[in-house]
Structure formats: C-alpha cells, structure tokens
C-alpha cells in the first residue's frame, strides 16, 4: 500500500509521519506518535472516548483519516496540562471524582474544555447537552457535571484575578 507523508501540529509540536490513507487519526496518534491518552472505544463515532480538538474544535478521531489532518493542528488530552500543571477541567475531574475507570475521561476532558471556551458559565442542562455525545459507564454522569461546574468556577476566579 502506498503511504504518504503528512505534517501536523500535535499539542503545539510539528510532527511528520508516514501514513496509509486508510489509517484513522486515532490510530496514528496512538500507534505512530505514542499518544495513547486518546482512547478508542466503539470506533464508529458513538462513544466519544477518542474526541480530540482539530483546529480547536472537538472531532471524533476515529471518524477522521490521518491524511485529512495534514496541515492542521490537533490537541489531544496530553496537550491540556500546561507546564506540568493540570488544566482547570482536569483538576475539576480530580476534585469532584469525575472519573472511576478513566477510559472515557480523555474524551470528556476535551469536550468539556471546548464547551467552557465557548460558554464559560454553562447551566447544568447545557453541560449535559454538550457532553451527551460522550458515554461513561461508571459514574452516572453526576460527578462529571459537577467537575465541569467546578472548572467553570475555577476559570471565572482565574479570569477575575487577572489584572
């Protein structure tokens, strides 16, 4: 099978990788770039575990060919923490016990990060709607919603503390 070379920016770093056109972005992130934080659950777009940001917008990396990401920027769960410090959304999941087994968590973190960028003060209903495309079999979602609320409060505090 002929391969082609693609260049993409992953978590701020330029990466060049040789791929077959049929390879999914999720598989290239995991198998070729060693970024195993992106999880594959259903591999047909239903569970949301593989959600990453493509040019800042949440997409299913199991429904995107890696060649389609050529020239684009991808953010995975590994890109959320800054200088070793958890992002507010990640810290919220920790504080509010927003995960149990953790398999679905990367997709929730990515989706919630985008939600709070678009809507910094979401209602619980808006949080549930935004996260309705991510499945969690452990938590019953209560603590996940609490975690996003925690993150929204944290972000608001950070913003009001800025000069």
């Amino acid at each position, binding site marked *: *099978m002929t391969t082609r070379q693609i260049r993409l920016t992953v978590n701020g770093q330029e990466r060049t990788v040789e791929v*077959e*056109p*049929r*390879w*999914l972005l999720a*598989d290239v992130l995991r198998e070729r770039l060693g970024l195993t934080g992106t999880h594959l659950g259903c*591999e*047909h*777009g239903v569970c*949301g575990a593989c*959600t990453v940001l*493509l040019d800042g*917008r*949440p*997409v*299913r990396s*199991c*429904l*995107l*060919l890696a*060649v*389609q990401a050529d020239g684009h920027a991808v953010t995975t769960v590994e890109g959320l923490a800054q200088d070793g410090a958890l992002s507010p959304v990640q810290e919220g999941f920790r504080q509010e016990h927003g995960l149990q087994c953790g398999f679905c968590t990367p997709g929730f973190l990515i*989706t919630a990060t*985008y*939600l709070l960028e678009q809507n910094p003060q979401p209602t619980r209903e808006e949080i*549930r*709607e*935004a996260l*309705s*495309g991510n499945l969690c079999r452990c938590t019953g979602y209560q603590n996940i919603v609490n975690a996003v609320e925690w993150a929204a409060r944290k972000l608001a505090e950070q913003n009001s503390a800025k000069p």
Partner: protein
Amino acid sequence: MKPPAFEYYCPETLDEALGLLAQYGAEAKVLAGGQSLMPMLNMRLSHPGVVIDINRLPDLNRVTVEGTSLQVGALVRHAELEHSALAATHCPILPAAERLVAHLAIRQRGTVVGSLVHADPAAELPLVWLTLGGELEVRSTRGSRTIAPEAFYLGYFMTDLAPDELAVAVRFERPAAGHGWAIEEFARRSGDFALCAAAAVVEWDAARGVVQGVRLGLGGVGGAPVRLDQAVAPLVGAVPEAELVREVARGVGQYLDPPDDLHASRAFRLHLAEVLSERALRAAVRRAQAKEVQGA
C-alpha cells in the same frame, strides 16, 4: 475495526473532483464530513475502491442568500449552519433542526449537504429541506442540474444522485417574513436519530387572522421524509383553533405507512406522528401569531 484499503484522492479543484467521479463512478465514494461514511468504512459495510475527499475544494463552505433561497455549500458543517446569523434570520427552523442533529463533536465535522445525500429516512435535515422546499445543485462532467427534494428521495438511503455526480450546494426556500415554524421529534436519547419527527411552517395572514399557507413534513415514518399537503389543507384560510389543529393532526396517519422495526412498532410511530404533528403545528402557529403581536 479499521477501514479497508482504498485509493485516496484529495482534489484541489471542482473540475478535478468531477473528473475523478467520471472516471471511477460507482467504484468511488465522496468523503465530506465523513460522519456516516467513516463508520461504514470502519465496520467494513462499505468497500469503495476509491475515496474522493472533497474537503480541500474551494468556495463550498459558504452560507449565502440567493434570491428567495438560503444557499448552503457542500462543505458547510452542521455547527456552522447551527450558528449562522443568515440562517437564523431567513430560515430559523434550520438552526433549531441542527441542534437536534447528533452531538456536539459530530456537528463540528458532519456536513449539511452530506446529511441530505446520505438520505437517512429519520434524519432531520432531509425533513426540513422537503418541508421548506428548495433544490440541490448537482455537477458532473456531463453538466449541471438541480433536483427538488420531492424528486430526490427514492427510498431508504436511495436518491436520484448518479454515481458520477457531486452535490455542490443546497438551496432552502425562505418562507415569507413573519412565518411561524417548529420542529418536534421523539428520540430515545439526546442526539439519536428520531423515531419520528415533524416539521411545520405556517404563513400567517395577519389582516384576517387566518392561516395563509401551511406545510407539514414527517420523518422516520418510512423510506423517506414525507410532506403532507393534503392532510393540512383544511388549515389554509382557517382560524387555527386548537380543535381544528388537533383534528388535522389526528388525520395524518391515513397518509403514512411506517415500518415495524426493533426501535418502534408501526402503531407507536403512527401515534408519534399524530402527537408530534399537533405539537409542531401548534408551535408554528404560536410563533406566527407572536410575530404579529411584535409587529415583525
């Protein structure tokens, strides 16, 4: 689950894309948003020899007003139409319908035109397109043509699109200013395909306080969405009293032939069709009357 091997093309011009479609025809699949094609490739339900990725074609990502229509290019994503100010002004039922399409991440990638040509009988956008009226602009190396929704849907996932044709844009007819609209659906979970969905548009004669024109469409009740012009005819020129609206909605079943399947029985779908038709018609009338009060 991984896609089977295929030859991949990513044309940079429309002519190049049409040339590839002319060359490969039914052997090729067009990849736009990929939110239906990619799952089918992953599950190997589809084995195209060639995938033609149109995501790098220029000028197909615009929402514009063209005469009496709202035009949406083939690369406009669901989320873009959901948040389009032009759509909110000219066809407000479209952003409302988009909020019912799948989930946040799917809407970022999936395209409006892709949903129309995929032709899932329970999808929201084919229903709204049929209800509003309009046309699909289709190109091939043989030329171009337009297709109305009434002629486009032939049955479950079947359309009038030929293997060498590419849908480049859809036009939705803009209802008259001050019209009322509604889309109502029942789905088991948020973001699921609807077991049944109803879309209604009401044009209001403010001077006489009667319905001037009305359209009702239903999805999820057969192989393709249906528009029930005959069923709603008693509303035209009438004062839309609650009793009359209920009577019209109760009558939609005689025009429908929904299937029994593992998601819902035929009887349940007929029940939903009546209930959702009534809700959609009432909400559309309410919106039309509210605009009259505001003087919009």
